[in-house]
């Protein structure tokens, strides 16, 4: 009768173990569960020459630390069931990460064959493993395999079968003193108690020092006081000499050994792509060039997004909606004014105010996806992190802030590149403070009316006013971010370690897919909220029926009159300004149109009218209010969507209004103190 040998397959997840199992056993396999647990147990059979081989596929595990069900099953099977040979399947392309398990396996003093699987993938990555040297240093047979191509399998089986009559290996890692002495003492205690023999005592001693729960139960540590005391004394001795727990000290020694194996046996050629990556990174992550380069790239991204996405493509959307509005107005020429106004102003105007953002979104996401997929965004976070971290923010938050200067909606959407919930929430809540392009018409109007011909030195006052508002927005965003990170999102200091992937040229297909996925979400969800708000404001402006739309007698005007005194300390406590700010909640650029509506004049005449109702100081205070107060409907909708919480969207409205009002009042009152 042919002798049956049991071979156990052991390895990290995704090392190709299952492929190997399937190639070995074909249809001669059955699947069940390991006793008492829901973890799948796969067992199969293969004939090799005159031998029947039973193959057990153990669960994939990164180590034998017995901290998970999979690890316990693997350790239990090897210690208790004692397979004849263990085949350690290794992902050759990630050999460094697989060898930890290998070293622990060797300490179990079981017969091992190392299968360097996926060797073809490793060679493509320019990773070359000296199999002969590795076999010599580890003292085990090493075979290269490609399970998916059935390569090296017979050699692997041959090596496994050849170990049947060989002596069991005796592998002992040098843990240094006093660990080696302590291990000898514990091993001796185990042998004296008859719990282990000279082949198994060292492994059990290692596991007991590492506080392995499975092994503690296996040896019934609680029942053996002398053994327990020996282990405890050993741990204390190690702590007092090395300063650390045995577990971390011993793991460190394993890594030293693995590092030695890698240096001796693994050669990595520099792939052309990696070489180029290193050259580019010398500039991109340079201490002095990194940040200016980042700002340059963001400036270009912003310019392209606004000029191409917003000005060029967006203008076609605007034209389309204007044409649609005219067409529908023509169709409804005989309909009641209210019906026509609802369809043309509220629905078409309202929907248009949402969809006009779509080309901007497409452009921005296309460019962001390009930066992400190419690998640059990881570098951006890397170079900006030190700067942003100084104020309690994540490096990638800088990207969101810069994009917000084009459109707050886009800036908030770009916080999806942030990895943690805390960083994302802070990015979302501070982005609305950044001066966006929608506010520009308001600044332009007031700057022209009050600062148009003035200069400060050689610099135009209007330009300085614009710049001061941008700086103020950034300053408030950073301060708010710092406060939020210390209070609402308070967390302990954390350490930033990240992957810098090699650069690659993204595919057009993936860029278009990413672009569409992110923009689609915006159109679907934000549109419903924005449309609802715009329609609501329109209703307020025409009620009660018969009033002049947008007048003080309309509901909107009455609401404006009601809240106007609130803005008196900021210098603009009139109902017209209040109405404009209310309308600005729908869309910031609509503030200009609102002034035109309430003052009964076209936008081009407004500069002359405004000087009658504002002073330069109150005008600046109004601009500060416009900069900082509650986000527009589109931004509100996106905050709600991105945070998945109405609470946070309302919080954003409330806290930004409070900050806007406070700073507007501060500017006005301090200005008055200085006689401005």
């Amino acid at each position, binding site marked *: 009768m042919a002798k049956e040998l049991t071979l156990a397959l052991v390895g990290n997840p995704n090392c190709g173990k299952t492929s190997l199992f399937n190639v070995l056993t074909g249809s001669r396999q059955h699947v069940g569960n390991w006793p008492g647990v829901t973890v799948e147990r796969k067992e199969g059979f293969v004939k090799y020459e005159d031998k029947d081989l039973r193959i057990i596929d153990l669960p994939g595990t990164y180590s034998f630390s017995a901290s998970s069900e999979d690890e316990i099953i693997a350790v239990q099977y090897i210690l208790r069931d004692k397979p004849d040979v263990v085949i350690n399947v290794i992902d050759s392309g990630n050999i460094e990460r697989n060898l930890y398990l290998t070293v622990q396996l060797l300490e179990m003093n079981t017969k091992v064959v190392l299968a360097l699987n996926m060797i073809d993938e490793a060679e493509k990555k320019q990773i070359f493993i000296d199999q002969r040297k590795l076999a010599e240093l580890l003292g085990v047979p090493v075979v290269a395999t490609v399970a998916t191509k059935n390569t090296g399998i017979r050699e692997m089986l041959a090596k496994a079968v050849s170990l049947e009559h060989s002596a069991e290996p005796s592998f002992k890692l040098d843990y240094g003193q006093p660990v080696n002495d302590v291990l000898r003492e514990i091993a001796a205690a185990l042998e004296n108690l008859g719990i282990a023999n000279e082949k198994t005592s060292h492994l059990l001693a290692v596991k007991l020092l590492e506080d392995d729960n499975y092994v503690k139960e296996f040896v019934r540590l609680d029942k053996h006081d002398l053994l327990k005391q020996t282990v405890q004394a050993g741990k204390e001795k190690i702590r007092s000499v090395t300063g650390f727990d045995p577990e971390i000290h011993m793991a460190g020694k394993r890594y030293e050994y693995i590092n030695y194996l890698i240096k001796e046996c693994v050669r990595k050629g520099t792939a052309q792509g990696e070489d180029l990556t290193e050259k580019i990174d010398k500039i991109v992550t340079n201490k002095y060039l990194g940040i200016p380069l980042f700002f340059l790239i963001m400036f270009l991204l912003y310019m392209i997004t606004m000029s191409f996405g917003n000005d060029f493509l967006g203008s076609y959307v605007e034209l389309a909606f204007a044409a649609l509005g005219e067409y529908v107005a023509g169709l409804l020429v005989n309909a009641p004014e209210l019906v026509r106004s609802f369809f043309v102003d509220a629905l078409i105007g309202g929907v248009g105010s949402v969809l006009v953002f779509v080309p901007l979104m497409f452009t921005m996401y296309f460019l962001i996806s390009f930066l992400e997929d190419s690998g640059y965004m990881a570098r951006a976070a890397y170079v900006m992190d030190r700067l942003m971290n100084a104020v309690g923010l994540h490096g990638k938050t800088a990207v969101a802030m810069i994009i917000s200067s084009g459109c707050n909606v886009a800036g908030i959407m770009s916080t999806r590149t942030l990895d943690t919930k805390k960083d994302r929430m802070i990015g979302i809540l501070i982005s609305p403070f950044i001066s966006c392009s929608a506010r520009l018409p308001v600044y332009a109007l007031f700057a022209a009316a009050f600062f148009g011909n003035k200069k400060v030195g050689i610099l135009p006052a209007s330009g300085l006013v614009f710049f001061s508002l941008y700086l103020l927005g950034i300053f408030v965003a950073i301060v708010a971010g710092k406060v939020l990170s210390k209070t609402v999102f308070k967390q302990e200091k954390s350490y*930033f370690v990240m992957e810098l992937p090699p650069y690659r040229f993204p595919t057009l297909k993936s860029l278009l897919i990413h672009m569409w996925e992110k923009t689609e979400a915006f159109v679907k969800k934000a549109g419903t909220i924005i449309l609802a708000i715009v329609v609501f404001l329109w209703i307020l402006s025409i009620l009660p029926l018969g009033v002049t739309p947008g007048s003080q007698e309309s509901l909107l005007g009455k609401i404006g009159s009601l809240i106007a005194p609130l803005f008196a300390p900021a210098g603009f406590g009139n109902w017209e300004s209040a109405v404009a700010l209310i309308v600005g909640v729908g869309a910031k650029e609509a503030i200009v149109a609102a002034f035109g509506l309430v003052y009964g004049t076209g936008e081009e005449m407004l500069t002359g009218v405004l000087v009658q109702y504002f002073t330069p100081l109150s005008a600046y205070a109004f601009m500060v209010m416009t900069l900082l107060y509650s986000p527009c409907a589109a931004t509100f909708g996106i905050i709600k969507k991105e945070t998945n919480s109405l609470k946070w969207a309302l919080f954003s409205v409330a806290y930004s209004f409070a900050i806007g009002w406070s700073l507007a009042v501060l500017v006005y009152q301090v200005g008055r103190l200085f006689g401005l």
Partner: protein
Amino acid sequence: MLIKVLKEMANNELHSHTELARKLGLDPELVKQMFLNLETMGYIVSDDPSCVDDQCEECGVCCTKKNKAEQENVSAVATRWKLTEKGKEAVLKSV
């Protein structure tokens, strides 16, 4: 060797695996594996565990962390780590 990784993390706030590996004379892939081990042994935790538990299903954000965690072991892609009390003690002892 693991203590050296913890000490480097505690001394500096910004690292790439490559930079850490270069400083310690190690392979970057080995450094990644060390992070896994340090996490298993309880010396560090990834900074935002809520992003990879069941709450992900209700979270409206399709973040990079969520996407990557679905494909690989999360510790390999987490970009922020915290020292646990055990980790802090180990770093203090090493000074």
